[in-house]
């Protein structure tokens, strides 16, 4: 299992477009990937799940992956957060 703590830095938070970006990326990996916020975990391959996270700017999220490509999955998804989903 691999984990990483990230922060939502883009101003508008995880709205529809970033959510779609996360899901599209997460779906490329074999591992099970979860986004955890305030002990509430959602499957990162589910757009409905990611959208209902309603993570605004400044919220902290743990990316947790379990599976054959867990390292890579966590790194790549973390990068999306760090780049502010390309909105900065």
């Amino acid at each position, binding site marked *: 299992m691999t984990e990483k703590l990230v922060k939502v830095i883009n101003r508008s938070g995880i709205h529809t477009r970033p959510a*779609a970006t996360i899901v599209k990326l997460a779906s490329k990996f074999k591992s099970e990937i979860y986004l955890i916020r305030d002990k509430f975990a959602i499957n990162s391959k589910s757009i*409905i799940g990611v959208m209902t996270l309603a993570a605004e700017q400044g919220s902290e999220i743990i990316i947790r992956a379990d599976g054959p490509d867990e390292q890579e999955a966590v790194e790549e998804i973390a990068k999306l957060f760090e780049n502010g989903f390309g909105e900065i």
Partner: protein
Amino acid sequence: MAPDEVIKYGKADYRILKEQFVLKGIPSSVGIVIGKAIVLQPETLISPQTKVPDEEISNELLKFEKAHTNLVHQFMQSLHKVRSLGSNIVAILETNLLILTDPLLYDAIIDKIKSGFSVESAIVAEFDNQRKFFLNATDALLRERANEIDNIKRKLLATLKDQCIDFVDVQNAIIVAQNLSTTDIVNFKEAGILAIVTEIGGITSHSSILARSLDIPAVIGVHNATDIIKTGDEIIVDGFSGIVVLKAKEEIRQIYVTKINALEEHKKSLGVLAKLPAETTDGKRISILANVNFLDDVRLSEINGAEGFGLVRSENLVMELKEFPDERTQFNWYSEICERAYPKIVTIRTFDLGSDKYVEGLPIKEGNPALGLRGIRFLLSRKDIFKTQLRALLRASINKNLKIMLPMISSLHEVEQTRQLLEICKQELRNEGVIFDNNIPLGAMIETPAAALISDGLAKAVDFFSIGTNDLTQYTLAADRNNELVSDIFDDFHPAVLRLIDLVVKSAHKNGVTVSVCGELAGHSAATEILIGLDIDELSVAPSLLLELKNRVRNLNYSDAKHIAEEILNSNDYYEVRKKLEQAIGRHNLVEISQ
């Protein structure tokens, strides 16, 4: 329907319309069409509790998987078709596809069927379950997604019932539905529908915008349309006034046929104009530009022969998203307009918010918003927002066809502060290795008497002027343009307003700066001659007015216009101005002077 409701819409024809079966809606996309209706019935009520016997479960699973696969395929095809239409529509359809293929939702439905529920019940139960999350969201944008989830559910149920309409049948038909998704509209357009009538939907909804950009006449918000109209009925859809006529008598049918023919003729005759230059009879060239609210306006303007884009109202992006868009979103929008317009020049006005345009983040209560923190004042008070916009504009200027225009300038200091901020943004971008137009032109809107009176100084600080006649008139005459009590005082043709315009043009030309007019006055039939007489260089109007305007310019004589302008400038009484205008208009046999 009450007769007076009809009267609101009809003009000359309302007496006859009154006797007809007329449904009132909201005009969403222009055009008039007569054709046969195809009514898409909303799904009949499905209980989320219907069970099936155990031996049927595997068959139910199969039915679901088949319908799901078909719909995914259909979504992907629509996505493929809209690729060229722009990133907004693509993003909407992509999200729809992701919702449809959401593994949680999919698995939940499968589990529900496995536990003995009918496939319809399982779909309704699980979709509604997810929808609840969205409906309860604090974020308005998320709440709107609930509608999309509903649309996807309906499509899935329709696919299941094999009720998907054969697309061959819809050719030359008018689709009447409760609501249509963007996917539906793309597919129907492909299949050759004539028009759209829906029960719900807003004028700014994705579906409305799409209908306009695909040139499909549409009337939305027609209550009970799917009840009242039956498949096979001949109906008239009037996308100009937002009405649908059922069982039209021959008399009214003829009126509409005549209207349709006249529209075609008019389009054809004006169409020839699109390729001709906007030149007066004595050879004075005027640039005719288009005002842009949405991406789709770019294409429409080009068809109508716009030589460029004089006013892109960037605040529309804010109003549409109901929040300040981030740099990426803005960059995408600006570059898309610039790319579509290339090599024509695009003038983008920075967010003009405040006064009658309100969004979150603005000071809530101003005693007198028209004289408050609006336009450039707001931007300079929120440098974070302003900087994001300037950076996005700079990044979109890579093809050197973008100009930046500042709203509500009333002092030189505001231009200087903006220049400084622009320099900071340029330096940042240079450090980031981003390419942009280093000489991006910066212009000022002349909307306050103050700006007009110091235009000599302003002209040395900016690259172009654009006169916003609505605000200039309201501030010069101290008459609120939205207050009916003073509507007779609010007059763009007041000599005071015209003298300010004259002053602005003279200061500009002395300093080698061009002047455009992009307010309502530019599109006003009576104003064309005066504005040309005042030596305005460019006129910018709504795309639909372009050809009419060019037609007027080509029938004008510049030296006559100059003469009239001179006479008007020398009068003190605006009734006198009106009289002179009427004479001028009479000469060219143009439309009535009062709006």
